[in-house]
């Protein structure tokens, strides 16, 4: 099963209008700009689950909007029976539906508190939320405070490999080691001296004996020892303590340890003592044996009570910003690992929320959820897989998206405002032109700096605009495409776009046309710069330099175009003041930058806070 839907209202971004996020399976990636509503979803998921680890940091009650305030979750069974985990199979056998419940969100002592779920405990008591929040401190968690994660790791492995003798055997070894140490004469002498001094102080009031080696060798003790031994370096000889290791690796380790600590659902905790069900040949002491077996059951019960995971459970793992301190290559490795994990472990669901374009690019489009703020200020979460397109078209567009993401490793595709162009050279030129257009205006400059300019590598066709800008299911706020008319003549003919352009909503998606192509359209007002660029590129300079002559020159020598474009960009970048931005480009940037109609009349707010 998997968490399929979460609905939040009266909280943070959903303060004025409820927010629903739908997921498609046991692996999802939620992308979105700051302030779009990702935190709302993350905290909503965390608040919704009564059985979660670790505890959520306190949230100020200002995050609450006006009532009603609640969070509702709905799980769903897998579509393929064979993908279902042990807990899901159990519930189905009992004739139960997939778990769903809701909790009110309340104020309590100035903080937000999730109230008692409305449904009975049987809905939620076997779902475990493991939350790795953005503000986690992996070094702290692993080494100083949270030995629990490591304990779970030990117990999980014990359930998987009962033949290793489990924690019982390990504890025995640790106890033996401890005894050996404390029976050393040096330690004995220290003990005696302490005891003497203590006797004098307490002077017969009540003698306590202070012993050095009285620590219980319990699971917590084991965990402390384990964490000290945990090595990061590949060669065990050069093992370093955690704090000294690279933060990126520690982050990965934290994630790995947390995930490894999740046992397989349906494996029963083992009985610690050496017990077999085969009757002994000649039981010498049947009552003693019976008592031993009961004592072993007791230990197992204690271990059970201690463990975060019951025998049957579903674990939803929410990882915020796993890319922290990670080189892009490692980020890909992480996603690969998480997706593989989810395939192999049907009891685990992973939800990743991220800013990282690399992470988004490493995923299948169907796994992506885009969180954005609509024109009217309402936060929405949209599953890419839910775009309402007819079947064949949808398949084609998704395939292309997959290829694009794979090739470019860029998820600029899911930016807030996107400019789509034919090639890298166009992208370079436009970035420079954008800076000229922005001038001294800081907001405009910021906009241009972060504008997602997407070079396609081919003529601008249906992809990606038809995917990104479907009315009612937009994945972006505005997408502009700069295309070539490729039609020549005098006067230059209007563009003749394909019929599907008519389906676009002009407030979210627009085509802008260079006639006939980009380079000729830049000539007017920039003749000198064009000349300089041609000189630098050692290309033949037509005389005079006009749009037509430049167009003709490149039609004859198409190979020069790329070199020329890059050189022109460099030249323009060196002296913004001399650059004239063509009308259609200015129009394009104006449109792309403008706030969408339904917000305030002032200049558009920047997307990033």
């Amino acid at each position, binding site marked *: 099963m998997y968490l399929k839907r979460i609905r939040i209202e009266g909280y943070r971004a959903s303060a004025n209008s409820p927010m629903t996020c739908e997921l498609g399976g046991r692996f999802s990636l939620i992308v979105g700009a700051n302030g779009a509503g990702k935190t709302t979803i993350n905290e909503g998921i965390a608040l919704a689950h009564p059985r979660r680890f670790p505890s959520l940091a306190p949230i100020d009650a200002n995050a609450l909007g006006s009532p009603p305030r609640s969070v509702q979750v709905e799980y769903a069974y897998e579509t393929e029976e064979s993908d279902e985990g042990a807990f899901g199979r159990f519930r189905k056998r009992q004739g139960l539906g997939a778990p769903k419940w809701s909790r009110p969100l309340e104020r309590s002592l100035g903080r937000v508190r999730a109230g008692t779920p409305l449904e009975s405990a049987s809905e939620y008591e076997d779902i475990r939320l493991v939350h790795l929040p953005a503000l986690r401190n992996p070094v702290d968690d692993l080494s100083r405070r949270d030995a629990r994660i490591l304990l779970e790791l030990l117990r999980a492995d014990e359930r998987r490999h009962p033949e290793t003798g489990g924690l019982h055997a390990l504890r025995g070894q640790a106890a033996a080691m401890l005894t050996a140490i404390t029976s050393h004469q040096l330690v004995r002498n220290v003990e005696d001296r302490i005891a003497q001094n203590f006797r004098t102080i307490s002077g017969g009031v009540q003698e306590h004996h202070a012993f050095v080696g009285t620590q219980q060798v319990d699971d917590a003790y084991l965990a402390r020892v384990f964490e000290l031994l945990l090595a990061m370096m590949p060669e065990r000889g050069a093992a370093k303590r955690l704090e000294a290791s690279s933060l990126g690796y520690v982050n990965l380790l934290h994630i790995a340890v947390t995930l490894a600590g999740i046992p397989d659902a349906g494996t029963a905790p083992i009985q610690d003592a050496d017990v077999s069900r085969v009757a002994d040949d000649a039981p010498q002491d049947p009552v003693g044996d*019976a*008592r031993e077996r009961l004592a072993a*059951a007791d230990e197992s019960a204690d271990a059970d009570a201690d463990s975060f995971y019951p025998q049957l459970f579903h674990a939803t793992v929410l990882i915020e910003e796993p890319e922290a301190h990670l080189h892009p290559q490692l980020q890909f490795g992480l996603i690969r690992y998480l997706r593989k994990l989810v395939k192999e472990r049907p009891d685990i669901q992973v939800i990743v929320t991220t800013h990282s374009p690399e992470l988004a690019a490493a995923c299948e489009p169907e796994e992506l959820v885009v969180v954005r703020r609509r024109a009217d200020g309402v936060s929405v979460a949209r599953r890419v897989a839910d775009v309402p397109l007819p079947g064949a078209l949808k398949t084609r567009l998704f395939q292309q998206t997959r290829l694009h993401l794979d090739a470019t490793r860029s998820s600029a595709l899911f930016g807030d405002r996107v400019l789509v162009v034919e090639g890298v050279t166009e992208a370079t030129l436009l970035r420079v032109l954008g800076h000229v257009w922005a001038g001294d205006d800081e907001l405009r400059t910021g906009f241009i700096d972060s504008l997602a300019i997407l070079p396609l590598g081919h003529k601008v066709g249906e992809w990606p605009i038809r995917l990104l800008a479907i009315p009612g299911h937009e994945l972006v706020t505005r997408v502009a495409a700069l295309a070539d008319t490729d039609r020549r003549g005098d006067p230059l003919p209007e563009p003749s776009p394909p019929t599907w352009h008519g389906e676009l909503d002009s407030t979210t998606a627009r085509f802008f046309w260079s006639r006939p192509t980009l380079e000729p359209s830049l000539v007017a007002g920039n003749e000198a710069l064009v000349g300089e660029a041609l000189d630098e590129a050692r290309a033949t300079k037509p005389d005079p330099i006009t749009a037509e002559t430049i167009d003709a020159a490149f039609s004859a020598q198409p190979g020069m175009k790329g070199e020329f474009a890059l050189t022109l960009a460099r030249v323009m970048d060196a002296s913004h003041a001399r650059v004239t931005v063509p009308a259609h480009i200015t129009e394009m940037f104006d449109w792309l930058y403008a706030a969408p109609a339904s917000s305030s009349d002032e200049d558009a707010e920047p997307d990033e806070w």
Partner: protein
Amino acid sequence: MVRLTPEQALAAAAQDRLVNIVSAPGSGKTTVAAERFGYQRHLAGDDRGVLGLSFNRAAVAELRARISARWGGGAIAPPHRAMTFDHLHVELLHRLLDAGLINWPNGLRELDVRDDYRGTAGFRFLAPPSNFLRVAVLDGQRNVVSRGRRVEQPTTGIGNVAAHDALLSAGIVSHGDLRNILLSAMQVDELSEFAATWLAENYRALVVDEVYDAAFLDLKVAHLAAEAGLDVTLIGDPWQALYKWRGATPDKVQRLLGATTDRFVEYQQPQSFRFVGGQMPELARALRNGEPVSLPSGTSEQVNVALARTWRPLWSAGDNILPLSFRTIENATDAALNLLLDVVTRGRLGVNSFGREPAIARLGLDRERFQAEQDRVLQPIVAGLRAGRAPADALDGLRNAIRDLGVSRPRRLGTAAETERIAQVERLAARLSKDSVVPGLTVYQAKGREWERVGVVLTRAQRALLTTGLHELEDEHCVVYVALTRAKRLCIRLDGDPALDQDALDVPADDD
């Protein structure tokens, strides 16, 4: 920390697959049951659960509480469960419906299962010889249909076929009817195999508490489980099998114990924690050994409780005995008298009268409203009796009070019956002037409980049984055995009214 006796430890941690634990009174039966559940639960195994079963909700609640107290709150977490057999039958029936193996009217697959048909149209008192009770059964085509059965004893239920059909078509069914249906279903090979498979897929062990309260259907399910490879543990005492008259089939337990492919291994729990002093340990031992015993005589002033097989003898065994009921309710006057008695038992003993709910239903009173009005309306009558009002007069006042509550006035009975009820009121009045009273219970209410000093009122036949020795499993013997094993320290015989020694007419008391 409770330390188990050797016998308890051996039984709880038995490694045999099929285990029969025989628990004598005071041997800590529930302790062993809880221990056994936890032991089975923590055996290394697969993701199937351990299922604890008993026969009424109070018993299951007690079992749950003991298991949680002993093994922690997580002991009964999925897939492990504890429920009544009735609940298990509900699940089984739903699974059969889901699989399309049984057809419910209107093709329903989701049922509204109730304790009984109380509160529905057509629910009424049915008495022999002319009334028929409608029951739900499975016909040859695996459809659930309504059938009529002549009533042998007074009972409640639906008498009208249209009313019964309407209920079934709406998916409403009583536990009794559900059991009937499942019983027919278990006679069909394909259906019983389905049930066996379902049990085996979901559970790896069954722990059945109070197995001698089981009816044939429950034992059949336990048998299916045993043959399907589950671990099965039965816990009970064949000497305390009291519910034959209600449908339990204790002798069939022995049959189950002998009818499985693998054998049940018996673990006896003879040692009692209950009996102390000079009399009781020896008395209990002798009784269980089938030896003749004798009881010292005494008076009701010497005991904490009085026990008898039926209610009536309790009224003439001592004026300080306050029984929780007069007799089986046969008419509206009896119902009214029960409610009057309820005021006294609540005031003097802190418990309701036995049969209070049926009495309210019998009179047609609205339950909530009566709850609010009862004391206001009936206390004055009690006060009047205490002050010396004539019983016949008080009875009349009682009838008026009932009428004033908005229902029909209970009718005067025939001369002999009326005289008897007046005598009952007189006896009640006698209790009112006593400083302290002790409860009078039937043996059925006393099962599972203990008191320091117990007085038993025995019929002539029962006294005869004591001189020859008791046998397990036999109804009347079990009643005597249970009665005599309730006392921790002292058990005496109270002499009742010899005129009441009508063995042949003894009607078993209804249980709640």
